[in-house]
């Protein structure tokens, strides 16, 4: 009997209800998403805004409650976990947010922000131990210990994101969910933070879910990538397969649209690849059919489900 995966997401669906034009409308933000995450593995989730990638991340830390589906952490369902176990779970699955300006309390010192989890969960033996652990967390993310006494406004964006990471890794978690952790940063800082995350993942043996809209960034850090479109995973494969040999037409479009730092590949006038349809009138068939170059009549009516096309590789498309 093999060990269960660290994280097993099964048939996750999240709906939001919204009032629009006097009517209540249901939006399927996440639709039947399943994946597993092994120990020490980095899974990248990539997709455009509104594709549901953030909702998936938030569901795993129970910040959003899905309508259907399960999230199993080390074999037990996190949505049926009692409050005591949930507290423990909160130390095992940690989150790093996109906006390091919004996710730190401006009136709390960096040290206190980092230690907050430890304070709540009683992780510190005494004041000296608390201080030591704060210093250790800061050192781990490449910041000087003196930052503990500073406040968020005194830090640059990159430094704040390092604090966000320090806060996440303080209780030595098993899983870190990083939701667009570098999109608010400049390229040179982005590279530093990506390297830091990769180093921590390596040294602490973390499993990580790395959520981003940027295939370049996702590809850099992930072992495996899941591409999402309108709430569904449309392709999942090893990183190299996604970047070098994308199969799903949407993955191909994403790869092609990514600006490559090579002046030999110039943008042409007259590119028309459309935009995702509105969440309010979701097509009945494949949601990508309208933009797809290889769509056939069955794509208009039947929503394709994920199927295995090669070992470790799944695609949701009728025509590949």
């Amino acid at each position: 009997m093999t060990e269960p995966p660290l994280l097993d997401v099964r048939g996750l669906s999240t709906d939001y209800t919204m009032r629009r034009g006097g009517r209540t409308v249901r939006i399927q933000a996440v639709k039947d998403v399943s994946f597993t995450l092994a120990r020490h593995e980095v899974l990248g989730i990539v997709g455009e805004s509104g594709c549901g990638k953030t909702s998936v991340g938030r569901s795993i830390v129970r910040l959003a409650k899905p309508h259907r589906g399960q999230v199993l952490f080390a074999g037990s369902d996190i949505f049926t976990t009692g409050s005591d176990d949930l507290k423990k779970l909160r130390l095992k699955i940690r989150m790093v947010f996109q906006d390091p300006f919004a996710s730190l309390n401006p009136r709390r010192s960096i040290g206190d922000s980092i230690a907050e989890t430890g304070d709540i969960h009683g992780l510190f033996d005494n004041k000296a131990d608390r201080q030591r652990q704060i210093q250790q967390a800061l050192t781990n993310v490449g910041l000087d210990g003196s930052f503990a006494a500073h406040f968020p406004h005194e830090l640059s964006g990159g430094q704040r994101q390092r604090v966000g990471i320090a806060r996440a890794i303080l209780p030595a978690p098993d899983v870190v969910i990083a939701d667009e952790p570098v999109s608010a940063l400049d390229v040179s800082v982005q590279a530093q933070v990506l390297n830091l995350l990769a180093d921590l993942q390596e040294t602490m043996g973390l499993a990580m879910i790395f959520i981003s809209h940027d295939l370049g960034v996702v590809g850099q850090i992930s072992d495996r990538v899941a591409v999402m479109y309108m709430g569904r995973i449309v392709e999942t494969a090893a990183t190299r397969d996604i970047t070098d040999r994308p199969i799903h037409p949407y993955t191909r479009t994403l790869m092609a649209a990514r600006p490559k730092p090579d002046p030999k590949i110039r943008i042409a006038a007259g590119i028309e690849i459309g935009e995702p349809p509105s969440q309010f009138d979701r097509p009945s068939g494949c949601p990508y059919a309208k933009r797809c170059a290889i769509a056939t009549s069955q794509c208009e009516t039947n929503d394709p489900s994920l199927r295995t096309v090669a070992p470790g590789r799944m695609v949701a498309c009728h025509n590949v």
Partner: protein
Amino acid sequence: MLRVRDLSISIGTPIKPVDIVSSVSFEIERGEILGLVGESGCGKSMTSLAVMGLLDKSGPWVRTGRVELSGFDVINSQPYQRVETGHGGIAMIFQEPMSSLNPVMKVGDQVEEAIAVHQTTSAKQTLEARQLLEMVRIPDAAMQLGAYPHQLSGGMRQRIMIAIALACQPQVLIADEPTTALDVTVQAQILSLLRELCDTLGLSILFITHDLGVVAQLVDRVAVMYAGRVVETARVEQVFAHPAHPYTEALISCLPDPSHSKQRLTTIPGQAARPGQVRTGCAFAPRCRYAMATCVDTAPPSAQLSDNHQALCHFPRRGTP
């Protein structure tokens, strides 16, 4: 078309000014796209505001330098003089179209507002607005005139902004990070539209961005800014093939490459220098892997590497990096 000469922008008191943009010079030819590249706080947006003539004495002000649009002095003239002499021609679009558009006004009316400057009858305004929307490739242009900004996607909103910018037939369009808030697929379409406008209308574009991928695909020439100064200017091919300034070289090497996954990225040690920080020598010296004692002591000269290729460096990289 557009010439910027020795532009310095200062904050502080006139007696003790602190330069946040120092001696910036560049020019853009007709139908050309110049990419102004740099990281947050390097002074690129401040430069664009000066070029628009939007800086006055109440905030950062233009201490020295000239901005000329077809020979017309933009900085030392009032907006009405520019309109009267037919030199109104610089328009601007911004990063977040939602915060630039009026949320309670139909987009058609917002386009017509700009057209009203030169077109007085309402019917003609509406006609021109529809034509502009078609020019920026908004589907169902006639219908979309009646839409409010919140009913449009981010990409469509940015197209509306471009339509408004084009309403008075500008010679120069300043685009300040116009695609940073957009998804890659939408970004590709907006960039493609800008390229098309450049080619068909002979529009000159000052494209401000931090994204070197976008630079490589779109612009013709590049000016790299660091700490308030232009540190390298060159044609886009030269910048990527033979970056001369160590900062440019470092920026390019920081880019993630999805086909080399799981490899460490090159980083630039230290933190970006803030413009206005008092220093002698080269602002990049503390982070530069090639820095010598001279770099810390003496301000770097402008080195001419070839035609149209300059770098502000004591020891510019020559040949392949």
